[in-house]
Structures are given as structure tokens and as C-alpha cells.
């Protein structure tokens, strides 16, 4: 895909995960500012998805299109779902949930790059 964008995705996702983990340790629930952080990551993800789809459509990269398409769409759902589900819970467990979601999303970048063929 686009190397620098993937790097940004991984760094931001892991930063969000670390932030959530810090809140788990401090026994705090997810705060609105973290959701804004998640929204920033999501914005980068949407940009990346659009760019990747355009690249594939133009013949750049040679992923299994169905598989790649599935991943690129499904990975967009994780953070929004997690944010909705986490925010109703006003205990540290919401932070656990955000941590899991952000960490999962960082890992998915690795899978996406694998499927793309650059790993």
C-alpha cells in the first residue's frame, strides 16, 4: 500500500492503545478526548482505504482483490463500534475495550500489508 500512511496508522493506533492502557492502569473510563483521538485514526483509515482501493483499481499492487476488499472495509468498522460500545460503560473496562480495539486495529495493518504483498 502506501508505506508512510501505514506507518502513521500503526503509530497512531498504538498511541491510542497506549493511552487507553494508561487509563486502565489509572482505573479510569474512556473520555471524550480519546474518542476524538479515535476519530483522527479513523479519518486516516478512511483516507488509506480510499487510496488503496484507487491503487488496486488502477492495477497497482496485486492483492487477492476479494480478500483485500473485505479487509479494507471490515477494518473501518472496528474503532467506531468500539467507541460506541465503550462509551456507555463508565468504568475502567471501557478503557480495556478501547485498548483491545486500538491494538487490534494496529495488528490489522500488518495483515493488510501481508495481503497487499509488501510483507
Amino acid at each position, binding site marked *: 500500500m502506501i508505506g508512510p500512511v501505514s506507518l502513521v496508522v500503526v503509530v497512531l493506533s498504538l498511541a491510542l492503545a497506549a493511552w487507553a492502557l494508561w487509563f486502565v492502569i489509572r482505573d*479510569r473510563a474512556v473520555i471524550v478526548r480519546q474518542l476524538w483521538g479515535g476519530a483522527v485514526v479513523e479519518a486516516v483509515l478512511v483516507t488509506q482505504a480510499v487510496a488503496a482501493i484507487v491503487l488496486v483499481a488502477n492495477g497497482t499492487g496485486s492483492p487477492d482483490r476479494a480478500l483485500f476488499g473485505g479487509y479494507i472495509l471490515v477494518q473501518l468498522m472496528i474503532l467506531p463500534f468500539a467507541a460506541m*460500545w465503550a462509551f456507555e460503560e463508565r468504568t475502567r473496562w471501557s478503557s480495556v475495550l478501547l485498548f483491545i480495539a486500538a491494538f487490534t486495529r494496529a495488528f490489522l495493518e500488518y495483515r493488510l500489508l501481508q495481503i497487499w504483498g509488501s510483507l
Partner: protein
Amino acid sequence: MTATEPRVTAGRPAGPAGTSTGPGRALVGVYGVFALSASARAGYQIATKFAEAPLAYALSAFSAVVYILATVALAKGGGRWRPVAWSAVLVELVGVLAVGTVSVLDAGEFPAKTVWSAYGQGYGYVPLVLPFLGLAWLWHTRSRSGELASRPVADQ
């Protein structure tokens, strides 16, 4: 905030404790991730190459349904969804053990094509741990329901 375990349970309505709050919130989140990834995987397999390995791909779809049921039932928090949650998590446990064992014993017959193959190795063995967490959580929330936790699971 100093909410620790006791605070998490405080303020909850009487009756069976919900499965979707406290640790259950995170558990449902993990189940949701697996519902999503198992569905996507099964959808992809069935749409593109079902004929190659119908049994494995049908099992893939089955695991997706189990994860969806478990996610929804745990998220609903209890009541009439509780038996659904118990069943889904038990089926999940049997599924990961059975498919995991068969795939390890006879890799040729059972290529690594479901979430449960090789006990969920491709997913960091989370699929193997998850049903135990689910059962423990269902048991735990049940024992807080005001009744003494002495009735066997089978009564559920």
C-alpha cells in the same frame, strides 16, 4: 474515580446481573471482533472458492454464526438471552476443541481455513481462550444474581 470491582457491581438493578457491563463490556468487544472477522472470512471463502473445501468453509460460516450469537446474547445482558449465551459459548468451546484437534491430527483433510483451525493459532490462540472466559463470565454474573451460586450449570 476509584471504581474497582465492588463499585462495578454497585447500582445494578436487582435480579440477574447483566453480562454486558464491567468486564463483560470488554468481553463483548472481543467477541464482536471475532464475529466480524469470522463472518468476513466465511463470506470471502464461500463467495470465491466454496467448491475447494466445502466442509471447511461451511464450518467457517458456522463459527461465524456462533460468534454472532454469542456477541449478541452477551451484549443483551441476560434474561432470556442468557441461555442463548450459554449455548453459544459452549458450542464455541466444543467447536474450537473439535476443529482444532481434527486440524492438528489430519492437516491434509482439514486445511487451516477456519478461525478454529489449530486451536485458533492464526488468531494468537484467542479463540481457544475466549470460550473459557465466556463461561467464567456467565458463571460469575449468574452467581451475583442474588441466589447462592450452588446450582449446577446444567440447570440453566
